[in-house]
C-alpha cells in the first residue's frame, strides 16, 4: 500500500491515541481537514493492507502484574520448524513466535516464543502443559525469564 501525505498526517494524528470522545474519527478529521467517513475509510484500508496491525486498547500488561516474561527457545529439527512454529504461534498466551538462525556451537536454538504471565510458577506450568499437549517432549527447550529492563522505547512510525 502506498501512503499519501494525507495518510501520513492521519497517522501522525492517531499514533498517540484517538481522542476519548463520542466521535473520535470526526474529531481527528477536523484536525487534518478530512471528513469522518474518509478518516474511517483510510484507517480501514491501512488495517486491511497490514500497515496497521491492530486498532484497539493498547494495554501495558506489565502494570497489571504481568511481570513474568519468558522467552522460550527451542531446538527444533529443521524439517519440523513450520509444524512446531505454527502450533506454538496459534496459542493464546504466546505473543510472539519467530524462527531465527542457530549459532553453533554456542546457540543451538532456532525457534523463539514469548510468553507473559503474572507468576513465574504459572508460566513454567503453562510451558510444561503445552510441551505435553503439543507433543514437544523430544524437542530441547530452555526458558529465559526477563530481569531488568534497561531500555524500552516503542517504535514510532514516521
Amino acid at each position, binding site marked *: 500500500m502506498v501512503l499519501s501525505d494525507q495518510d501520513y498526517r492521519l*497517522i501522525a494524528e*492517531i499514533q*498517540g*491515541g*484517538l481522542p*476519548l*470522545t*463520542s466521535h*473520535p*474519527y470526526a474529531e481527528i478529521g477536523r484536525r487534518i481537514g478530512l471528513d*469522518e467517513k474518509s478518516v*474511517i475509510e483510510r484507517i*480501514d484500508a491501512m488495517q486491511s493492507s497490514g*500497515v*496497521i*496491525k*491492530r*486498532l*484497539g*486498547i*493498547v*494495554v*501495558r*500488561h506489565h*502494570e*497489571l*502484574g504481568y511481570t513474568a516474561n519468558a*522467552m522460550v527457545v527451542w531446538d527444533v529439527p529443521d524439517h519440523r*520448524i513450520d509444524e512446531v512454529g505454527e502450533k*506454538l*504461534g*496459534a496459542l*493464546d*498466551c504466546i*505473543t*510472539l*513466535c*519467530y*524462527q*531465527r*538462525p542457530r*549459532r553453533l556451537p*554456542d*546457540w543451538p536454538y532456532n525457534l*523463539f516464543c*514469548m*510468553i*507473559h*504471565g503474572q507468576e513465574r510458577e504459572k508460566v513454567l506450568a503453562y510451558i510444561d502443559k503445552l510441551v505435553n499437549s503439543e507433543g514437544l517432549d523430544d524437542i530441547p527447550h530452555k526458558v*529465559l*525469564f*526477563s*530481569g*531488568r*529492563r*534497561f*531500555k*524500552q*522505547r516503542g517504535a514510532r*512510525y514516521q
Partner: protein
Amino acid sequence: MATPAIIIEQALKETPQPHRTREKITLNDLEKRLLNEYQKGLPLTPTPFADIAAKLGTSEALVLKIIDRLQALGVISRVGPVFKPKRVGASTLAAMAIPEEKLEKVAGMISAYAEVNHNYEREDNYNLWFVVTAPNQQRLDAVLEEMEQQTGYKILYLPLEKQFHIDLGFPLWC
C-alpha cells in the same frame, strides 16, 4: 438536564490524576471484558465507544471513564493503532553473555545507541538481550561490530527468519 457530552466531560474530570503505581491493580469484570475484547477490533463506526458500551451492556460515559482511569493508572497506554514494523531497513535481535558485575555497565553502553530500542536482562548465560534497528544492513553490521569492539564481548546475531505469530495483545487469563 445535562447533555451526554457534558456527562462524559464530568465523568472524565472525576478520574484520579496521572500517576504510576507499583501496587498491583485489580480490575473488575467489566474492565477485564473491555481489555480482553478490545485490544484489537475497535469499531470503525462514528461512535466506537458507544458501540462498545452497547456490546458490553453499559454506557458510553462509563466506557470512556474506565479507559481514562486505566490510562491514568498506566494500565492502558492509548486507544489507537499498533503499526507493523517498517519493512525498510534492517533489524535484529542480539544477545551477549556478560559477567554479572559488568552487566549494568555494558547494558548502559548498549542502551546509549540510538539504534537500540529494547534492551533487557534475561536469566541465562546470555543475559543481555536487545533489538538493533538501522536504515540498512551495512549500517546494522557496522553498529554490531562497533558494539563488540566497544564492550569487548561477542554478539549473538539472531535476525528474524520467519514469523509464525505477530503480537495482537493477549487476554488477561494468561
